[in-house]
């Protein structure tokens, strides 16, 4: 699955990041960079610190050491909603949708940061507030079309099967029109067909909107096909960084994670 795009300058750089929980080092001295328009995969055994890395990028965890530079601005700490307003969106390993709300409302929440109507206008729901709702509804419907979930838009997400929930969660992240999209195991627990659909969505997002994507995935077939570059973590340290082909032949990575193919 070759696709050629011009990869730009680094949009995100992490420098010497360390993170620990009560003496346990989740990440130690991890440095990496993500270039614009790139699909970067992070792989590694369970507990290697992959999710922690994403959590540092969008501000859920604050690193004990090191800096994160996103779109030229360097910072040691920030809150998740600040990350969101700078254009970082994500999905979660264990789906984190708003279970009591419909698919439509869930995806609409992704537009929150782009909505401006004041409190008063919302109370009376005329003028600005109403127009704004409708304008953003158009955008959300585009995403619903893109993900082919038209028929379930009024269904509460709690009732949906797992695969669809994952898709809705991707929709919510896309609604924010992020520059950087973090996907935490987007294909975990899916069957082959669902994986193919999801892979197609990821590639299309990357192609059509030019969104930079960082994803964590265990399915090596998917990782090798989708990604431009792969980073390997083990025990909180980076042990590999390169194109899929380079990673496949990296001895450290084979020892720690990939194993030997028979």
């Amino acid at each position, binding site marked *: 699955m070759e696709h050629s795009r011009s990869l730009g300058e680094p949009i995100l750089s992490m420098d010497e990041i360390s993170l620990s*929980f009560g003496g346990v080092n989740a990440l130690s001295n991890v440095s990496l960079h993500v270039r614009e328009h790139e699909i970067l995969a992070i792989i590694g055994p369970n507990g290697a610190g992959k*999710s922690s890395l994403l*959590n540092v990028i969008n501000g*859920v965890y604050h690193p004990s050491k090191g800096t994160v530079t996103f779109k030229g601005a360097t910072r040691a700490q920030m809150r998740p909603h600040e990350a969101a307003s700078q254009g970082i969106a994500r999905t*979660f*390993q*264990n789906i*984190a949708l708003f279970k009591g709300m419909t698919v439509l409302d869930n995806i609409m929440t992704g537009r929150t940061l782009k909505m401006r109507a004041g409190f008063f206008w919302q109370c009376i729901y005329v003028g600005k507030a109403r127009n704004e709702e409708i304008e953003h509804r158009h955008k959300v419907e585009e995403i619903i079309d893109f993900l082919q979930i038209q028929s379930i838009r009024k269904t509460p997400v709690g009732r949906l099967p797992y695969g669809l929930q994952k898709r809705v969660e991707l929709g919510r992240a896309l609604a924010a029109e992020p520059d950087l999209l973090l996907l935490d195991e987007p294909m975990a627990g899916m069957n082959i067909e669902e994986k193919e659909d999801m892979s197609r969505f990821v590639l299309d997002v990357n192609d059509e909107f030019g969104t930079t994507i960082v994803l964590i995935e265990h399915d090596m077939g998917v990782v090798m096909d989708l990604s431009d570059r792969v980073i390997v973590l083990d025990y909180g340290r980076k042990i590999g960084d390169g194109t899929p082909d380079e990673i496949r032949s990296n001895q450290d990575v084979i020892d720690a994670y990939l194993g030997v193919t028979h």
Partner: protein
Amino acid sequence: MGPFIEVLIAGLMAGVLYSLVALGFVLIFKASGVFNFAQGAMVLFAALSFVRLMEFLQNTFAPILLSLAITIVIMIVLALLVERLVLRPLVNQPPISLFMATLGIAYFLDGLGQSIWGSDIYTLDVGIPKEPLLLFESVFEDGILVSSEDLVAALVAGVLVAGLAVFFQRTRIGRALRAVADDHQAAQSVGIPLNYIWVIVWTVAGLVALVAGIIWGSKLGVQFSLSLIALKALPVLILGGFESVLGAIIGGLIIGAGEKLSETYLGPLIGGGIEYWFAYVLALAFLLFRPQGLFGEVHIDRV
């Protein structure tokens, strides 16, 4: 110095009773995740049953022991009924629904207790000595006046807590209880009968309520206001953490002492009656610095 220590001790003794009520809350919350608002109603119900039974049985050979035994049976039956009629139909409901259900239980028990046993003030005498003791005359000028009733109460509470600690740490049922507290489904999957555990915890909470009811009742008379003690015990929970037995005890002592000291030294300055809310504000101020309470666990949000 003498008067200050007197007030402090009186406060600590009152705190012991708060601890007892808070303990009932904590036991149930730990084992079933239910915030049991009916704990106060249970105190009233147990104390009412006990005092009235004592009256009816006063001509038998051992009115205290007999009525104690019968009240214990009543509390066990109550636990069984609560499990069967409330907890079982509501299993897997959100915590708020269960909380509301316990409010329902509280209303029901208040009504039931008073319609069966009457709603007057009943004096309760189980033979706790009432004379105040004068201690440390050699250390302080006028000595320190301590109510012997309070001392007995503290002693009983201490024994009860120690007994519970042993029960939880050393017995098979205790281990099962702790497993259930950790994870309901996991505990069930290794064959711990959830319903049985709930009955046990509610029984234990009922017995703790009975002890608290007897002690408070013999101090103030058994009356409806016992039911409101529960409200006094809530700040203790914030302070000590909903899931910590030790927290309930220490929290109770802090709240009791703080309340009495503030009433004595701060009250006159701002109009009196502040013990009505002081505990809450104290607990709230504390929360802002330690949201998980004194001994609660810090939960790391995993996403």
